[in-house]
C-alpha cells in the first residue's frame, strides 16, 4: 500500500460509488475503501444475516422467513424516476449492462383516511375518486396549461411568468382545491413539505413534467427499481470503477484522516499503514459524523429521518395487490410539516422470499417520539410480521473541501427518489475536479 493515489474514496454508498466510477473513467487513480465487508454503506441492501447483525445482533433470523440468499433488504427507501438524472448516469456509464430493472407497479396517495392510485392514464384520471367532477375539469385545464407551455411562445403563458409567479398564484388561477394541491405538490412534484408553494413555479413545473414524462415512459408508475435491490446500484458503479483501474478494499477500518500542518489532506490511516492521496472523498461517517475529526467539526447534523423496515406477509391493503408501490401521505392530511412515505417491494424484485413483502415507512423527524410520527404510515400496512426501526442523522459537510482537499458527501435524505443523490454527485464532482459533470449524450440503441 505504499502507492500514492489521486483520490481515496471512503464508504461505498451510491454517491461515493458513482463518483469513484466516474473519476476512474476519467483516468484518475482511485483507492476505494469501506469499513464494512459489504458494498453500499448506508444505501446497502442486506441479506437476513446482515440485517439481523445490524439491528438485532443477539438474534438469528427466523427460519420461516426462508433462505438468507433470497433477501436484499434496502436500508434506504428510494425508487428511480424513469426519466430522471440517475437514469441518465446509468445509461451514460453503461452500468445498465450489470442491472435489470422492473417497474414499480403503482403510486398511491393518502386522502381523507384512505389511499387512491395516482392516475396513470387519462381513463384512470377520469375515474379517480381523488377529485370531483368540476375539480377534474379544472385539473385538466391546469395540466393542459403545463403540457402546452413553451418558453418562447407567450401565447401559451396565459399571463403567467414561471420564474416570478408562485405556485400559489397558479393554483389560484386554475381554482384548484387544497386536496388537489396536496396531490399535485406531493404525489407528483414529490415535495416533502409545502415550502414550494410560495416559491417561483418553475421548479414545480419541471418536477411535474419530469413525473409525467417518467409516467409516460413505461406506463404503470414513474418509478423503476433494480432487481436484487438498490444495493446493486453501488456495486455496479464499483465494478465500473474497478474496470477502469480503481482498487477496492472492503472490511477496512479507517482510523484516521491524516492532515499536514496546514490542515490539508495527506492520507488515510488504517492500523499503522497510511495511504497517501491528493484528495479524499467520503461519506459523513468517516469524518466524525457530527463529532470532531482531526480536531475539526467537518459535518453537522441537519435533521433526522426515521425509517421502519416492515416485513409483511401480504400486499398492502387497498393497492389492488400490487407487487410494489409507493404511498405518499401528504403532510396536511396528518397535520405534519413533512410527508410520510411508504415504499414497498417484493419477491417480484428478487429482494425477499415468495409471499413476503418489504415496506419501508419513513419521514423527517419532527418530535422526540419519531416512531409515533410514522404511525399513520404503519397503519396502512395491515398486520406487520416484523419491524426494524432506525433513526438516522442527516449530515451535511461544513466546508466545500477546496481548502483542505477533503470532500464530504451528504447523508441520504427523506426524498423518495435519487434526484438529490445525483445533485450531490454533481456538486462533489465540481468541488473535486473544478469542472461541471458533463454526461455525453449517447446514441441509445432501440431494440425491438
Amino acid at each position, binding site marked *: 500500500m505504499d502507492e500514492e493515489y489521486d483520490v481515496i474514496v471512503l464508504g461505498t454508498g451510491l454517491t461515493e460509488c458513482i463518483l469513484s466510477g466516474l473519476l476512474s473513467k476519467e483516468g484518475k487513480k482511485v483507492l476505494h475503501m469501506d469499513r464494512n*465487508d459489504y*458494498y453500499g454503506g448506508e444505501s446497502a441492501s442486506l441479506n437476513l444475516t446482515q440485517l439481523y447483525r445490524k439491528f438485532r445482533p443477539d438474534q438469528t433470523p427466523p427460519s420461516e422467513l426462508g433462505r438468507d*440468499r433470497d433477501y436484499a433488504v434496502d436500508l434506504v427507501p428510494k425508487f428511480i424516476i*424513469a*426519466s430522471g438524472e440517475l437514469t441518465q448516469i*446509468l*445509461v451514460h456509464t*453503461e452500468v*445498465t*449492462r*450489470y*442491472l*435489470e*430493472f*422492473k*417497474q414499480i407497479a403503482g403510486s398511491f396517495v393518502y386522502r381523507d383516511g384512505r389511499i387512491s392510485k*395516482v*392516475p*396513470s*392514464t*387519462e381513463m384512470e*384520471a377520469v375515474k379517480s375518486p381523488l377529485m370531483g367532477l368540476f375539480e377534474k375539469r379544472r385539473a385538466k385545464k391546469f*395540466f*393542459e396549461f*403545463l*403540457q402546452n407551455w413553451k418558453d418562447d411562445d407567450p401565447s401559451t403563458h396565459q399571463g403567467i411568468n414561471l420564474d416570478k409567479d408562485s405556485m400559489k398564484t397558479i393554483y389560484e388561477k386554475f381554482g384548484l382545491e387544497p386536496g388537489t394541491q396536496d396531490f399535485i405538490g406531493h404525489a*407528483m412534484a414529490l415535495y416533502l413539505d409545502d415550502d414550494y408553494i410560495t416559491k417561483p413555479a418553475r421548479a414545480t413545473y419541471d418536477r*411535474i*413534467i419530469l*413525473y*409525467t*414524462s417518467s*409516467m*409516460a*415512459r*413505461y*406506463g404503470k408508475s414513474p418509478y*423503476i427499481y433494480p*432487481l*436484487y435491490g438498490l444495493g*446493486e446500484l453501488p*456495486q*455496479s458503479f*464499483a*465494478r*465500473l470503477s*474497478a*474496470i*477502469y*483501474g480503481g*482498487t*477496492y*478494499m*472492503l*472490511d*477496512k477500518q479507517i482510523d484516521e484522516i491524516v492532515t499536514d500542518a496546514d490542515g490539508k489532506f495527506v492520507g488515510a490511516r488504517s492500523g499503522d499503514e497510511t495511504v497517501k492521496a491528493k484528495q479524499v472523498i467520503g461519506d459523513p461517517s468517516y469524518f466524525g459524523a457530527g463529532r470532531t475529526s482531526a480536531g475539526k467539526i467537518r459535518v453537522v447534523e441537519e435533521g433526522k429521518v426515521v425509517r421502519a423496515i416492515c416485513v409483511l406477509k401480504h400486499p398492502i391493503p387497498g393497492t389492488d395487490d400490487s407487487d410494489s408501490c409507493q404511498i405518499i401521505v401528504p403532510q396536511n392530511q396528518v397535520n405534519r410539516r413533512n410527508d410520510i412515505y411508504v415504499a414497498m417491494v417484493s419477491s417480484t424484485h428478487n429482494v425477499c422470499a415468495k409471499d413476503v413483502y418489504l415496506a419501508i415507512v419513513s419521514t423527517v423527524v419532527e418530535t422526540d417520539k419519531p416512531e409515533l410520527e410514522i404511525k399513520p404510515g404503519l397503519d396502512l400496512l395491515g398486520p406487520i410480521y416484523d419491524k426494524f426501526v432506525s433513526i438516522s442523522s442527516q449530515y451535511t459537510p461544513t466546508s466545500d473541501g477546496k481548502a483542505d482537499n477533503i470532500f464530504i458527501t451528504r447523508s441520504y435524505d427523506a426524498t423518495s427518489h435519487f434526484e438529490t443523490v445525483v445533485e450531490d454527485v454533481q456538486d462533489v464532482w465540481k468541488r473535486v475536479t473544478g469542472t461541471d459533470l458533463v454526461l455525453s449524450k449517447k446514441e*441509445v*440503441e*432501440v*431494440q425491438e
Partner: protein
Amino acid sequence: MSTKQFQFKLVLLGESAVGKSSLVLRFVKDQFDDYRESTIGAAFLTQTVTLEDQTTVKFEIWDTAGQERYKSLAPMYYRNANCAVVVYDITQSASLDKARNWVRELQRQADPSIVIALCGNKADLSARRQVSEEEAKKYADEEGLMWAETSAKTGEGVTEIFTAIAKKLPLTAPASRSGAARGTTAARSGVDLNKQSTAQGQNEPCNC
C-alpha cells in the same frame, strides 16, 4: 439452415494472480502476455463455442476487474451466473484453498443449477507443481465439479474446458436465459432503460 444459439453468463473466480484474466485472453483472443498489467476498461468479453451439432453457445464472460484482490468482489458479480470457472495455480497450494472457498460461496449464494469448473492453471510450470492432479481431481469429484488443468501460456486445455462447460449447460432454454440476458437488452422481462419513450413524447398530453 437454422442453428440454435444460447447465451450464458460465465464468471471467473479464484485468488489474485492465478491466471484468470490470462485464461480469458487466451480463450477470447488466443493471446498470452507475460507482463500484462491488469486489464483496464475490459468490461465484457464474449466468445462463442460451436458444438458438434452446430449449436452455438455464446459466453458472456465477466472477469473480476481485480476486485478479488482485497476480498472485495461484489455479490452482483456472480449473481445470475450460469457457469463459473474457479481457477487455482498448480504451483501454489494455497490457491487451491482459496478455490475451495469460492466453490463454497457459490454453493451458498449462486443459482443451484450453476455449472462449476475447477481449473488448475499454469500447467506449463509442472516442474514447480505443489498441487497434484489426484488431490484436485478427488476434491472436484466430491463436490461434483468439472475439472481440468490448463495453461494460459501455451494454450493447453483452454478451449477444451470452455467447450466442456458449453456441453454441460442445459441447452433447452431459449437463447436468452434470465441470467445471461442481463447485460444484453434483448428479451428481458424488465424495462429497458436504453429505450427512449417514442410513442408518447414530450408534446403528448400528460399521461398522469
